[in-house]
């Protein structure tokens, strides 16, 4: 579950690789491959470690409205997959 008020970070076992469509994420622990299909989402994920909260990481990319809602959903998916976790 994603709690937007908490600070998050990329899991240590995850490799994130830029691609033209966004990025590929590979979790070395679960051996799962995930697709991050938007450069904005990649920017948010990379910004998590420095942001005081997940919400702040979204703010930092200037995301609002429906785009922001979609990003929140995507982040929740990444949290469920263990790609990101609360720190």
């Amino acid at each position: 579950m994603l709690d937007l008020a908490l600070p998050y970070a990329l899991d240590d076992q995850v490799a994130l690789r830029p691609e033209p469509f966004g990025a590929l994420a590979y979790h070395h622990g679960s051996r799962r491959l995930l697709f991050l299909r938007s450069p904005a989402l990649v920017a948010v994920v990379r910004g998590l470690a420095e942001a005081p909260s997940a919400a702040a990481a979204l703010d930092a990319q200037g995301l609002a409205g429906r785009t922001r809602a979609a990003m929140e959903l995507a982040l929740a998916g990444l949290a469920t997959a263990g790609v990101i976790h609360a720190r």
Partner: protein
Amino acid sequence: MLADELRGGLDAPICLTWEVTYACNLQCVHCLSSSGRRDPRELTTAEARAVIDELAELQVFYVNVGGGEPLIRRDFLDLVDHAVDRGIGVKFSTNGALLDDAAARRIAALDYTDVQISLDGATEADNDAVRGPGSYAAARRAMDRLADAGFGPFKLSVVVTKRSVGALDELEALAASYGAELRLTRLRPSGRGAATWRELRLAPAQQRDLYDWLRVRPHVLTGDSFFHLSAYGEALPGLNLCGAGRVVCLIDPLGDVYACPFVLHPDFLAGSVRDAGGFRAVWRSSELFTALREPQNPGACASCDAYDACGGGCMAAKFFTGLPLAGPDPECVLGHGEEALRGVDAAALPAAGPGHSRRSLPVIAVR
């Protein structure tokens, strides 16, 4: 669609196969790489380490290592150490004969490393008919050693042939008895498999049974091997596309880069890691890989409703059976391949060549 983005190619492969040596203690009748003898031009330890460093820079997530038998290379486990240190996962296939207690303990201590023990039948008779005398016993000993060393869930890797397809339940139970995962892959008419494919391949009804069996077992690993079966209806788990030169490729023991592990043939050679630009230049700008990333011509499959599901099947299977690449897979589940195969002139088949087979091939009955 994501598949379209993948078909257009990635900045680096998701994973790649690296056959580290052509040397092998076995002479399996379906060996994709016609392995046996070591090639003196094999990459040196220093060259192999440099390849790993380059793959790390490109952020290749993991490599599937095969051969030949990887453990024949004395520097193999050092190379695995180096890959893991550089953040590259390693999945290596072995026949187990050289996996002694010391190797098992060393492997068990590594992170990010998966071991696949090859076994192509649930009984000694079925397995050894394909993999050679003593190979069943050696694989079982290796499985025992990995279990004793506390490696955790290794993979039992099975090529599905006439000899193994009737025993999938037994093979699943065998894997489960070790806490291991079962991995099934498709038999391809590549390497020495070109000569045995017709004998060993599945009958149409067996293909259907395999599809149904896999459909209710999404936990069984397939390396995306059976996407041609997705033309039966619901897609099997996985990317369901031919990833050759788009998301995967093969590095052979000499550093030559081919489009996929099943097409060790000059027509599918893209370049070499020994070339000036290294692996990166081959991946990003070789003529062959650039062409493979273009939209492919569906040929005779253009009017088929199932084309979106199977994409025309496996390029290697078509090539080595003499079928046009634009057209159906020889094992097309709708039967179009069988029809096409009947029209192939045996004299026009691509020459398989001796590869690295030892001169005196053991005579193995495959029936």
